[in-house]
């Protein structure tokens, strides 16, 4: 039996997995499933059949692609997931709690490589959630990167005409 914390997007699930008579018994919240699990050949695809009891012939069929970064695509919808052994997760929780406190700065990063065509705020400026901070050109289109929350612009690290890479910090909000 193993106990995991699974993060799916911004949600957290506690999932217990036990090997049981050739199958898997999975407890999530207060529900129990018996799972027939198959890893498909030739593609990073998983197939699960979720059964209501250990002897059941079948149940809900779930097919899901899992990419290398741990993103799952149930029903084709991309969901970032992270699996942690429950004890490690608990430790992390404690560490985070210590770090906590509101208003930590948020970095606005380039979601793809591109060319900065416009900067929509300057350091010191108070902005609302949704305010366009930087406009980035990529794939023949202008893409607006906006403030993820209300705050004050601490830093703008790019200027129009500048090429930026994926993940590069464009602005910092606090």
């Amino acid at each position, binding site marked *: *039996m*193993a*106990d*995991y914390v*699974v993060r*799916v*997007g911004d949600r957290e*699930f506690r*999932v*217990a*997995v036990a090997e049981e008579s050739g199958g*898997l018994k*999975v*407890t*999530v*919240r207060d*529900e*129990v*499933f018996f*799972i027939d*699990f198959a890893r498909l050949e030739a*593609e990073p*695809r*998983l197939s*699960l059949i*979720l059964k209501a*009891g250990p002897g059941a012939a079948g149940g*809900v069929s*779930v097919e*899901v*692609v*899992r990419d*290398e970064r*741990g*993103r*799952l*695509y*149930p029903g*084709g*919808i*991309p*969901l970032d*997931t*992270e*699996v942690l*052994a*429950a*004890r*490690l997760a608990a430790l992390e929780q404690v560490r985070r709690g210590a770090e906590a406190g509101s208003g930590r700065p948020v970095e606005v990063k380039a*979601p*793809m490589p*591109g060319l900065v065509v416009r900067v929509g705020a300057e350091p010191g400026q108070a902005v609302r959630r949704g305010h366009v901070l930087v406009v980035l050109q*990529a*794939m*023949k*289109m*202008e*893409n607006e*990167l*906006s403030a993820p929350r209300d705050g004050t612009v601490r830093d703008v690290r790019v200027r129009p005409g500048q090429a930026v890479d994926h993940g590069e910090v464009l602005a910092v909000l606090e």
Partner: protein
Amino acid sequence: MNGIFSRVLIANRGEIAVRVIRACRDLGISPVAVYSEVDRQALHVRLADEAYLLGPAPARESYLNIERIIELAHQAGAEAIHPGYGFLSENAEFAEACARAGIVFIGPPPEALRAAGEKTAAKELARRVGVPLVPGSDGPVSDEEALWIAGQIGYPVVIKAAAGGGGKGMRIVRSPNELPSALRLARSEALSAFGDDSVYIEKYIDPARHVEVQVLCDAHGKCIHLGERECSIQRRYQKLIEESPSPIVDPALRAEMGEAALAIFRAAGYVNAGTCEFIVGPDRKFYFLEVNARIQVEHPVTEQVTGIDLVVEQIKLAAGYRLEYDQKDIIQRGWALECRVYAEDPDNNFLPSPGQVVALREPAGPGIRVDSGLYLGQRVTIDYDPMLSKVIAWGRDRREAIARMLRALDEYEVAGPKTTIPFHRAVLRDPRFQAGEFDTGYVARHWQGVPVPEDLLVKAAVAAAVDFHRRPKVVTGERPAAGQVQESPWKVAGRWAALRSR
């Protein structure tokens, strides 16, 4: 096929290059691909009989490089070039360069491209043949002229930058006292965006629907139309969902719009396939918008309801063939929808989402057609338009077409880049869309992402945990020892029911 080309070069990439390759095959023509350095492994390169390297990724060094393309057409012995859409498809200089090089440009003649394809020339043409335009100023206006014209055409009006598009420098004005400040703001935006503060003014049609008419003209004077397409589901002037017929067009309006479109194409001396775009107001009055002098992304919906292969027709018309049917032979059967799959994140303001395609399943089965340039292992880069593929669904009626489209979207799996597939699923399930009640403001007004259903989250959590649990571990310490979780007895009813009612 007699007198048709034996070899055609396709000056494009992605799904439209694949689409043109298929039309060539159907005509017994050998298709020749061109590609930029990042497209070496692309599907169009592999499906063509021959492939030639254009140059580096940037479009102006590859897919927009007129000289290079013509040189390669000569090398390959291609008698004609199909430009697809975008890139050089409406470039009159390219059409002229082809003519000079003795190569057939599969599209309208250069003069028709200029007369119909350029916005102001096309408006002049429409005016001349009596097709209604959106009331407004003829061109740039002073502040005083704007006030006077607005009074004449009635509010609301819209101010637009004369030098550009894409919504920049645009302002909607609902009463005379808002006009001065709106003009000031629009001019300032236009100046900073385009270096030119000229603006013009037009009646603001609201709610507006975007309806366009497909036209085919042969070189022997015959022009017919193939009915309309509705393309009102768009964001920032980028179409996302199209259909034919339009839910708001009846046979009388279809005939009227068709005649208007034909009048413009005839006046332009147009040959080949083209589209006339209209804005339709809430009173079902229509106004000329522009001519698209090329094949359009959304052409398949017309193909599915009329049975006519538009790209095959383009090639035959460019070779001088006559249209084999008359207006009366064009019969729309059933209903067709198209959903464009973009590498964009619909939950994050449609930001481009490049990346490698790590798993792929394209839909199939009754009523479904997929026009795609996608392949497993593909690296979607930021160099070009983010459209990956199109799903087209046909049904005996709109209801059946929607049901089949939803089934296809649910089958469609693209892992790697985020795509607009979840957006389409949500729109097609929206009762407003299903009732045909939408306009060009639909996406801006209603789209705010969709929450992921709780059962999918649970499924993902279970799958992730089981996958992790069963995966061979490199570091042994990573896998925890037996835990202490207290198990409840088999409590399954609630969740079970939820999971089942998918």
